[in-house]
């Protein structure tokens, strides 16, 4: 059985930190990292597959050749926010979630 994904309301847009990240818990207990980069909002899994800890929301935001990424606060591997790809180790990747702002509320498709 597959469960249909739904837009979940996570928080108010003022809960986000500009050009940095916050962490939220989904209904199924997955942790996600939500980043506000200028006017865009991205959500990815909070689990750092290399550092093996729930820390990605505390990473630095950067861009390389136009790809916006978060650098893990533990060992600095960079994960592209819209694809989940790791720029430093192609054998790992993180989950990404569609994210939108709806009447100042942050919603995530999960």
């Amino acid at each position, binding site marked *: 059985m597959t469960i249909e994904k739904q837009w979940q309301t996570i928080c108010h847009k003022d809960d986000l930190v500009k050009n940095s990240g916050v962490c939220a818990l989904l209904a199924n207990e997955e942790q996600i990292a939500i980043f506000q980069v200028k006017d865009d909002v991205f959500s990815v899994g909070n689990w750092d597959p290399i550092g093996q800890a729930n820390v990605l929301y505390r990473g630095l935001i*950067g861009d390389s050749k136009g790809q916006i990424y978060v650098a893990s606060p533990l060992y600095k591997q960079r994960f592209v926010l819209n694809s989940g790809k790791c720029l430093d180790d192609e054998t790992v990747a993180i989950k990404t979630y569609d994210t939108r702002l709806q009447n100042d509320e942050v919603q995530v498709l999960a």
Partner: protein
Amino acid sequence: MSIKQKIVVVGNGMVGHHFVDEMAKHDGYEITVLSAEDRLAYDRVHLSEYFSGKTAEDLALTTPEHYNELGVKFFTDAKVTNINKAEKTVSTETGDKYAYDKLILATGSYPFVPPIPGKEREHCLVYRTIDDLDAIQASANSGKVGVVVGGGLLGLEAANALKELGLQTHVVEFAPQLMGVQLDKDGGELLRNMIEGIGVQVHTQKATSEIIDGEDCVHRMVFADGTHLETDLILFSAGIRPYDNLARDFDLQIGERGGIVVNNECQTSDEHIYAIGECALWNNFIYGLVAPGYTMAKVAVDNIIGGEQQFTGADMSTKLKLMGMDVGSIGDAHARTAGAKSYTYFNEPDDIYKKIVVSADGKTLIGAVLVGDTSEYDSLLQYALNAIELPKNPDSLILPSSGEKPTLGVDALPDTATICSCLNVTKGDIISAIDAGACDVAGVKSCTKATTGCGGCAALVKTVTDHELEKRGVEVSTDICEHFAYSRVELFHIVKVEKIRNFDTLIEKHGCGIGCEICKPAVGSILASVWNDYVLQEDHLPLQDTNDTYLGNMQKDGTYSIVPRMPGGEVTPERLIVIGEVAKEYNLYTKVTGGQRIDLFGARVDQLPDIWEKLIAAGMETGHAYGKSLRTVKSCVGSTWCRYGVQDSMAMAIFLENRYKGLRSPHKIKFAVSGCTRECAEAQSKDIGVIATENGWNLYVSGNGGMKPRHGDLFATDLDDETLVKYIDRYLMFYVRTADRLTRTSVWLDNLEGGLEYMQKIVIDDHLSINQELESQMDAVVDTYQCEWKTTIEDPKQLKRFRQFVNSKAVDKNIEFVTEREQIRPARGDEKSYKGVQIHTVDITTDREVEPA
């Protein structure tokens, strides 16, 4: 249009699969794969990782979708039982018949189980397939002790697997040493000691005569010498035997001791039938490694399409990690070649053994054994494979660097040098990949497949790639990163001269993009050095490294450690009690640091503000242990208490620590003040070292402990208090302005043109007429100091950021501790009770935990 040639491949192991991949590159062939197993090819080389978390999917080398894309027909559970050479057909157990033009036998091998009475008993297993691993796991669950019969390479891998499964593990070997094929006697002996050191017992020269019921365990193994060993699980890993029964039954030539005889084209005695991999006998030899099998697969493909490649033997050198220990073997490890001579290096205390074997004329390397340290393996292998002439003293290749070690420049390698032996990629192949447009290691990798086998050549591939790129003039730039075409020093000047106060303005005017983890913290530090604003204010916050963002030191599990400032290492009993009480209340691991203060570990991000509120209420402030800034001023008690002290080193240390605390700099800064020439505070190993004299203070600069120790240079002598502080002001501020990011004062001074003398001219003689400016800039930093934690806990908006979740009060369940020596430490993966999201769920509307059903 001609009809496609029919290629039938029997067996889908690693080699059979490699053949399919290679064959499918050519048009005009219809490929059919018949596999007796129930799954398609998977990686047997990394089989043991199945027990450390890899799944069958992770190990898979291909998928049905991949074969479909290639247009390859495949059938699993299709065991071939008949070959009709005249009719050119094969048929399976179930009676399905397949016609072929060329038949490839890639049936592999099976583990040899010695004919010991009792070998059929339950829990007597082998280690070869994923199904075997499942059986081993099941068996291990019900037992405590496991024995591997066979101390070869595979046997030791199997022993590692048993150890990972938590069994008390033994290795029983018939020969007098472990890994007799690859290692010589001394190497084998050292490996044995190391393996026993991690708790695996090794029994050599033991022949098992029978297996009977045990008294304490399931089995008792009785040995020929009358001794015995009890165990619950026995794994046979005593070598492999080729699966050659098809060839036997249908009259293909078979070797005396098994194996399907093949010629240099990998053809069997029937020219339309090829055999490759571990079932094939070439030159009376069966290769039990994957790399020669891959080469055979390529040769067979080439012959089918009309090429003339030949299989002419393969290099059996290996480098691997066994139970965490490095082992390498190259060529003639036993020095059996006529006239061969050896050089040996044996370092017993560090468990390192290295031997090289050279030809009779001493000019070429023909073999090597490395145990405990395989760092020279790559270059030794290149010497051996390419017959590169050895240096005058060949032993210099393996001796520890007591002098210049001749390094084998990649330029010395011929284009034919094999760099990746698994996939047979040469230096020439890498060069062609770069010529074809690959501009980094990743590009070379996807083009040549180098490093995708065992991965042991990764470092060499990178060196060759970088070297070739450099030769093509790929420039090394001093730009800090892709966002700014400036060095840190240049950025510092821009910020100061143009009075820029935030990152956005700087990048808009002088850079591009949004920044990165290199330029953001560097600019954050520059802005703090110049303007000293609160580091967490809205426009500075996103610039900080994680430690600064949360004003703590992140540990491996995502928790933080907390260090209150303790100037000079002085602390009142009252404050010490508060620290103890806080540590107790929040169950923090407590340790005294090397900088004479106390570190509290294991605080969750959401606990940090509460903890700091308590510490601040007791009069403490942040210790900046997280920042690239002043850490501590270490001291001895000096003339206040000590019989030998000549100055009040305590008072000076506390004064200096309070003056420079919070100063953001290119890297961390450490000070020390000693009260006499006995130097108990070890000031000469610090960035700034002050040592008391009868007449005042001697100032030492740019010392370092840590990674690259350096004694401080004596900068000036017999200074009074005021001059001492002025000199330090100037010296530090000049460093802050001119050093590259993440450069300590030691490296900075070593790389500074003019060095110590130049700095003395600036600081003492005001050679650049900037001393007043340096001092007033330092005064400004000192005057604007704030305890960042105090500012933070007073600001509700900041406090919000320390929530773990924006939408729940739950805590991160992945953070778990165990107790060790009466304190906590982070639980390792196997010690954690929380295994993932499926175990607990949280109702986010009530924040209440829902227990699993």
